[in-house]
């Protein structure tokens, strides 16, 4: 954690004889080309990084005048610096020049790992009758008096329980039930906040069975102990108490975030001394805890095929995940995944295909099912040729139909038509539907989109926007946007943050999990509010906190168990960048880190470009005079001219948050000296801004065009997974103008991005006949 990077733009010196005509190009050739190359591409052994960036001509000129040629800046006066800056800016330095020199194109990409999993889940969920979204609020519970082997002799009580975590000792659970023998059944859904491995745990001295993500069957009732009816396999089976001891069992389950899963928990007591049951979980990024009302729903859900296969990580070298790597590891992972999917489908084949074991035309109907799967996976109707090759050919042999289905599924899921979602077919309605589903959901078109495509109703921006408005309300869109904000806020890198226990007692894993949830909640509340205003993220003067957070951060605890908005002193905190989760993430074990905070703000928030540091320098606290403040240490460390190229941007931003310590608590002193959070920040356009602390920073960011454009660019890249310029040189500017005029409405922007990406190429290429 204590590694410090610093960055510099270093132009090298070229000696030359005499002065020639002072055009920018000539100066560049005379003084710069030896180290920077003909077109700024760099020269190995001299300065091997490409000269490109986002500074204005003026800022570039000032930098050149001050630092270039290296060690001999006097060789180039301010007028000449201005000329050479103008030349390199236009020729290759600026984003516009780069776009002109290397026109972006929409690349052929495969599904990202997330897109693969989401597509599989929705592909098969689409065969089940739709259920309304399961809303949070706890589980449905029925309480029964038991009588011998009849565990549900009499239903005495039905209610909703917020959680399952009780210790009745020797008492009865409800009036009208005897304490010696009774049973309780909970049902509803588990709400999975993130994608990953969930651990589930039951603890009881009595009998309990837990089912999650299983479609329940006739025998899934605890009416009689000895009923032979078929049951779903229990995830955790502690039905038999044996030896009179407290028993505990844990299971692991891979779930996709943003979805709900059927849950049932059956419990009974029979003459054991005491009655208790604890149902706990450890969600990804979380700690062991009792799932509560926000994690449980009394409403039903369907089972989902969630593939636990480990995929090699997607390429993230451009700052967003994209499917450009076709490696052996990926090929094998998709093979394993295809086998897992095929097995999962075959194991619940009759339910998915809507057939019964004894149907006379079962094989024909299974063949039809496989053809439907293929068409949905390929995101367009099957041609006769494809139907023959992918389906019919596999059903002609004497194989059992299950085997034919399995092989057809393997063939479909291994086909480029599934794995590469946009194969550059002439843009048509099906193609638009496919892109919309990918951009908004990372998934496949649903039935409404497919029908719209069949009707030819996806050709105009209005039609596409209408679909986008419908789609953005779906849980898949929420999950995808949540993923974007995690990425934008670097939340995903923050899992292993820990702090010095002596300095910060109470800052433990549970508190970190609360902080993370608080940040998610803040983002969610802004994004899904009516205004959905990006600027509110930057300016909000409240943070959702629960009792534990309130205690640690010294604010008034909200009433009740949950998270409630608590207003901080607006002079102290402003917006998500003063959220303690981020402040503690971008900090050292014991102290703040203005550099980590500054780099994060520069890149992610203010949308500016930083090159990788030319060398990595470790921040070693004990090397400094122990009486210095953190600001003084950082200033000393990055004093060199080579550092200041970037640190002149990074440091002022980081210093503006110096009022927050390593856990994000407000402070007025550092190392027994008053905190100095004031500094002058130079924008990319060369404007000087005085930042006196967090509020100034937030105000600047909220009004900054660079920051806004950076947000638009990052959101585009995350949702579309292509370069924005591939959709026309003016794509970002157009989106940014619309964004601004919509009141910086985030959901609107997402829908506009979806429209731009989906309709790309449609106006120039007439749609093909279906």
């Amino acid at each position: 954690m204590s590694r410090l990077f610093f960055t510099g733009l270093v132009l090298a010196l070229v000696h030359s004889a005499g002065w020639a005509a002072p055009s920018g190009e000539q100066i560049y050739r005379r003084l710069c080309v030896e180290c920077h190359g003909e077109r700024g591409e760099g020269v190995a052994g001299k300065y091997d990084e490409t000269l490109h960036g986002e500074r204005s001509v003026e800022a570039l000129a000032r930098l050149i005048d001050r630092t270039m040629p290296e060690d001999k800046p006097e060789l180039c006066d301010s007028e000449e610096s201005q000329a050479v800056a103008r030349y390199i800016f236009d020729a290759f330095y600026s984003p516009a020049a780069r776009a002109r020199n290397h026109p972006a194109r929409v690349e052929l990409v495969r599904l990202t790992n997330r897109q693969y999993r989401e597509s599989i889940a929705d592909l098969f969920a689409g065969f089940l009758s739709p259920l309304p979204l399961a809303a949070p609020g706890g589980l449905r519970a029925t309480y029964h008096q038991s009588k011998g082997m009849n565990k549900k002799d009499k239903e005495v009580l039905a209610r909703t329980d917020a959680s399952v975590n009780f210790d009745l000792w020797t008492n009865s659970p409800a009036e009208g039930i005897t304490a010696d023998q009774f049973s309780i059944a909970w049902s509803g859904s588990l709400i999975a906040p993130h994608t990953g491995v969930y651990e589930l745990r039951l603890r009881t001295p009595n009998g309990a069975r837990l089912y999650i993500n299983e479609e329940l069957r006739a025998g899934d009732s605890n009416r009689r102990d000895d009923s032979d009816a078929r049951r779903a396999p229990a995830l955790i089976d502690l039905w038999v108490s044996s030896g009179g001891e407290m028993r505990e069992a844990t299971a692991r389950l891979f779930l996709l975030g943003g979805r709900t899963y059927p849950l049932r928990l059956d419990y009974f007591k029979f003459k054991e001394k005491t009655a208790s049951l604890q149902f706990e979980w450890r969600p990804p990024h979380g700690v062991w805890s009792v799932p509560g009302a926000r994690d449980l729903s009394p409403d039903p859900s369907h089972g989902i095929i969630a593939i636990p296969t480990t995929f090699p990580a997607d390429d993230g070298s451009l700052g967003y995940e994209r499917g450009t790597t076709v490696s052996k590891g990926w090929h094998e992972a998709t093979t394993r995944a295809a086998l897992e999917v095929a097995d999962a489908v075959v194991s619940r084949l009759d339910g998915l295909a809507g057939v019964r074991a004894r149907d006379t035309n079962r094989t024909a109907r299974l063949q039809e099912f496989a053809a439907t799967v293929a068409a949905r996976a390929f995101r367009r109707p099957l041609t006769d040729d494809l139907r023959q090759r992918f389906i019919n050919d596999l059903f002609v042999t004497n194989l059992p139909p299950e085997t034919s289905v399995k092989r057809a599924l393997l063939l479909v899921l291994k086909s480029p038509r599934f794995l590469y979602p946009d194969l550059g077919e002439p843009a048509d309605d099906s193609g638009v539907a496919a892109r919309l589903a990918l951009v908004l959901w990372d998934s496949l078109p649903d039935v409404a989109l497919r029908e719209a495509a069949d009707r030819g109703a996806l050709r105009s921006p209005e039609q596409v926007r209408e679909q986008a408005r419908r789609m953005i309300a779906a849980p898949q869109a929420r999950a995808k946007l949540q993923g974007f904000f995690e990425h934008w806020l670097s939340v995903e890198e923050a899992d292993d943050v820990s702090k010095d226990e002596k300095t910060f007692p109470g800052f433990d894993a549970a508190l970190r999990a609360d902080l993370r949830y608080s940040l998610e909640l803040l983002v969610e509340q802004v994004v899904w509010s009516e205004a959905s205003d990006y600027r509110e993220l930057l300016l909000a003067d409240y943070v959702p906190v629960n009792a534990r957070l309130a205690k640690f951060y010294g604010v008034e605890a909200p009433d009740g168990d949950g998270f409630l908005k608590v207003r901080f002193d607006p002079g102290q905190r402003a917006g998500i960048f003063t959220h303690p989760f981020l402040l503690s993430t971008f900090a050292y074990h014991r102290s703040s880190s203005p550099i980590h905070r500054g780099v994060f703000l520069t890149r992610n928030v203010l949308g500016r470009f930083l090159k990788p540091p030319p060398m990595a320098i470790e921040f070693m606290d004990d090397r400094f005079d122990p009486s210095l403040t953190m600001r003084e240490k950082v200033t000393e460390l990055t004093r060199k001219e080579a550092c200041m190229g970037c640190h002149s941007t990074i440091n002022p931003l980081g210093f503006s948050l110096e009022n927050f310590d390593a856990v994000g608590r407000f402070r007025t002193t550092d190392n027994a000296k008053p905190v100095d959070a004031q500094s002058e920040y130079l924008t990319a356009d060369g404007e000087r801004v005085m930042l006196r602390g967090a509020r100034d920073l937030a105000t600047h960011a909220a009004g900054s065009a660079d920051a806004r454009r950076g947000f638009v660019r990052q959101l585009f890249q995350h949702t579309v997974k292509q370069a924005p310029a591939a959709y026309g040189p003016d794509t970002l500017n157009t989106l940014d103008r619309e964004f601004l005029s919509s009141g910086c409405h985030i959901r609107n922007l997402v829908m506009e991005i979806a429209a731009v990406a989906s309709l790309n190429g449609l106006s120039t290429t007439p749609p093909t006949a279906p």
Partner: protein
Amino acid sequence: MTLLHRRQFLRRLGLSASLLPFVGGLPGLGAPAASGGRQRMIFVFTPNGIVPPDFWPDATGTDLPFKRILKPLEPFKSRTLTIQGLCNRVRGDGDGHMRGMSCLLTGIELFPGNIQGGSDTPAGWASGISIDQELRNFLQSREETRTRFGSLELGVAVPNRADPWTRWVYGGPNQPVAPLDDPYLVFEKLYGRMKDQESLGSILDDVHDDLKRVSATLGAEDRNRLEEHATLVREMEVELKTAREQKLTHPEPVLEPGAGTENDDMPRVTAMQSDLLVNAMANDMARVASIQVTNSVGQARMRWLGIDEGHHSLSHDPDLNAVSQEKLVKINVWFCEQIAALARRLESTPEPGGSGSMLDHTTILWTNELGKGNSHTHENIPFVLIGGGLGFQMGRSLQMELTPHNRLWLSVAHAFGHDIKTFGNARLCEAGPLALA
């Protein structure tokens, strides 16, 4: 040969026994052991007691006529041993069925628990290991007898709830082992990876072909990515083919499709499980196995015999109810036929790498949780042994004076060279192993 022909050929045949490096190890492919000294044991459970007059031979000795229920074993008479007089003497918590079932192979008490039967006190799981698992652990502990699975736990129409009525195999105290009653799952356990490889082998050529077709429609820059992809597909095909030479000693059986795990599928499933088990043993995947047919209190409705009532309900009917007794005899005859069929399968399979048939090296032990259904007695529980390999003197009928069945488990352990002094409840082992040699 055109591509199309080759593809169709592959699709029809599949690539049997091919191996994917990333999927991992294959089932027992090793050559059979050089010595012919394998010993195997198969424990078979059928529920709800028998009909004693139609089961037990009238006297002790050799070459006695079999009664109706044992008639199907006639061809194996010289290799059959019936032992009358063995009792499950384990007491404690649990009703007769629970203790009958969960103390049968364990010979030890149940823990107190929350499962209440129709009578007696509630109980939990057995407090000790079962004899088959004891043997398994012993065989797996030695290099020369170690196999891929050690033991296989199969079932027929076992309800998928776990309680002391549905579990007879225990890995240890409080460790019930669930039987697999779906032959397709058994197949997957034994050969699943190979099946996957076969399926893959049958489609990879099509995948490659598809990649080629799609990439032909793309621009040069995008085509590269699909070319890379196509190369990876070809590599996988080659790996599959290279591994195809490896063969099982006995190729896996071909299962007929569509057998469910419901009541009416019992005859088919029983036959399939027997086939799978004999095949797995021929390939030396395990030396110990159990087949649990339904469960204690099992309610099989043998409609294929013209019996609509549930087995357990019938078993409660009094001796004087001749109609019910006749049905119970029929049910047990059917069970015996399944045992005989298993013996036949073993007999018709030559011992791999050894002499004689597999039956010469395998002992089937058929038993029940009760001596008699309507009395729920734990006395005179049926124990019928068929086959060989344990050094027991077969072809006879033994009669003992109410002897704890723990002593039989000692004999079996000793026959495998596992010289334990007690098994299960030590008090019930005091007289030592039965003399069966």
